[in-house]
């Protein structure tokens, strides 16, 4: 029964895809929140260098030593970037873009020199092939389990444990680094730990999705979650959901169109992001637009009230507090002027008598509230 489960190739592929997404977005959430997303791009590319070096030294591509070794080169990228920034000659984004191409170049040249006949295909290195994960299996008891499933599962657990253990420290270090340092939480060490795990995840995800698609799994699900919620723990939930949805839908679409499965999964994370970007409940474009329009209309009404209030009882009242002034002084077009006056009348903020516009007591109160919030508060307190 269990064996049948592990022999189910589509299920295994989708499972590995989802795990890549979940493990990546666990660490990616903090990278996105800290504004360091592009470090994952640098790490993903630099890992190629790490894998080549590790292979040259040990003549093996997989195994725990190899994984840690390659992951350390990810960290090396970050350290080198940091060093370059410390010289104050290069800004951080430029430093990122300088370091990883160098490491990547050295990796490619080393392959050219020493490993021509070896199975480290630069093509797979970049693209991965999640469709073949079931080819490489290990036997556990009497079930054959895909190697990638094991390593991704382990990475997911490791990342989850790290985030779970240091949840409150990570949260504080992300949102208020100074306070975290003042409290003795060593946000720097935490951050490097996070990046080490990011590198480890990159290495583990490598065979499945390659260096570049890994970036999609680190950044896109957390970014999608960030468009949907303000709560950190919910972001992990949404990140997981996006990963699973992208993995499943990506798999079936890829099979239907006979294209790269990993690529399609990454495209689907982008599609889900676009959905959140357009239709998210609070930060979505449509919601924003509706809110802004409501706000704008309200502001127009308030602008009119303030305008009338400012000139009420003044010598120029007869030329300011009339409908004509909306066109000539506020520079509103006819349609807008008419709309604002109508709305204000509906809300009983103003009354209109021919040309003249007069505030009602409610309208006067609204204007006062806007102009003198302090006084309003004081009076409310006094009552």
């Amino acid at each position: 029964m269990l064996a049948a489960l592990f022999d189910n190739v589509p299920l295994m592929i989708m499972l590995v895809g989802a795990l890549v997404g979940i493990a990546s977005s666990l660490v990616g959430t903090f990278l996105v929140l800290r504004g360091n997303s592009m470090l994952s791009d640098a790490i993903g590319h630099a890992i190629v260098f790490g894998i080549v070096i590790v292979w040259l030294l040990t003549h093996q591509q997989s195994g725990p030593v190899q994984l840690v070794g390659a992951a350390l080169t990810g960290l090396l990228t970050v350290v080198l970037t940091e060093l370059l920034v410390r010289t104050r000659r290069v800004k951080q984004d430029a430093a990122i873009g300088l370091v990883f191409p160098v490491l990547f170049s050295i990796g490619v040249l080393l392959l050219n020199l020493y490993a021509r006949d070896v199975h480290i295909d630069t093509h797979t290195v970049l693209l991965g092939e999640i469709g073949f994960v079931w080819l490489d299996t290990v036997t556990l008891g009497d079930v054959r389990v895909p190697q990638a499933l094991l390593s991704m599962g382990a990475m997911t657990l490791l990342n989850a444990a790290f985030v779970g253990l240091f949840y409150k420290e990570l949260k504080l270090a992300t949102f208020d680094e100074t306070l975290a340092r003042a409290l003795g939480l060593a946000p720097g060490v935490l951050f490097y730990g996070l990046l080490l795990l990011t590198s480890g995840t990159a290495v583990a995800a490598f065979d499945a999705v390659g260096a570049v698609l890994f970036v999609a799994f680190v950044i896109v699900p957390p970014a999608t979650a960030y468009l949907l919620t303000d709560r950190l723990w919910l972001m992990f939930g949404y990140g997981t959901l996006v990963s699973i949805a992208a993995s499943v839908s990506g798999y079936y679409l890829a099979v239907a169109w006979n294209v790269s499965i990993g690529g399609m999964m990454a495209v689907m994370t982008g599609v889900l992001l676009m959905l959140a970007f357009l239709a998210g409940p609070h930060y979505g474009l449509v919601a924003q637009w509706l809110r802004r329009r409501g706000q704008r209309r309200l502001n127009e009404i308030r602008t009119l009230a303030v305008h009338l209030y400012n000139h009420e009882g003044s010598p120029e009242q007869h030329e300011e507090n009339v409908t004509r002034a909306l066109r000539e002084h506020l520079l509103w077009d006819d349609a807008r002027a008419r709309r604002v006056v109508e709305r204000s009348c509906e809300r009983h903020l103003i009354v209109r008598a021919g040309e003249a516009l007069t505030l009602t007591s409610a309208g006067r109160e609204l204007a006062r509230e806007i102009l003198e919030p302090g006084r309003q508060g004081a009076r409310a307190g006094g009552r």
Partner: protein
Amino acid sequence: MTQSLHEPGLALHVEDLTVSYQSKPVLWDIDFDVPPGVMAGIVGPNGAGKSTLIKSVLGLVPSVAGHVRLLGLPYKAQRRRVGYVPQRSSVDWDFPTTALDVVTMGLYGRLGWLKRPGRRERDEAMAALEQVGMTDLARRQISQLSGGQQQRVFLARALVQQADVYFLDEPMAGVDATTERAIVDILRRLRDDGKTLIVVHHDLQTVRSYFDWLLILNVRVIAQGPVSEVYTAENLKRAYGGQIALLDETGFLSDRASGS
């Protein structure tokens, strides 16, 4: 009121201006007039919308309602007659360029497309640098200048615009006393030549001695007019609310604002 000249007698005429950032209003129904040939200050607490007012006048920030006239015409028609000194912190001073280069940028608007600044422009820029006492540092890279010197360069860039109305956004922020005196002297000279200066200012202590026209702002107009009439404890209290308590304790208000 017509599309052509409107209030041509005023250097700046702002009428019913409402400005919002991200649909949140930061200036409400501003009416503000500045006669020509004065040095006008704009003061108000942080977040009062002082910079926003200038930017909106210059068309850098769109307005929700209202209109602006400079010497009787909209800004677009008067661009050549207006000089602008942005906040010093608004640019990256590590940019590879010299003091002379920055000043020459003030002439780019006049040059028009495709034309490059030549000897004449360089001479004009040098003359402006001389006015602010920076001739020796003309070829210096701007990151090697002190804060005060950087501010002088910005001022020279506006001077070279040969404008009639100048807008300055906190030109005295973070500069040394010598520079502040030098800047004020230059501004006074400009005013005496009949130019109009509109200055966002943060230091209440110097308002009386620097300016002859004043706008006190806090999201709306608190008061405006000649400094002697407008700079009163009452008005400042209305603008600054609780923040003025600090000033009260130093006895500053009773000394200066009540006009004693």
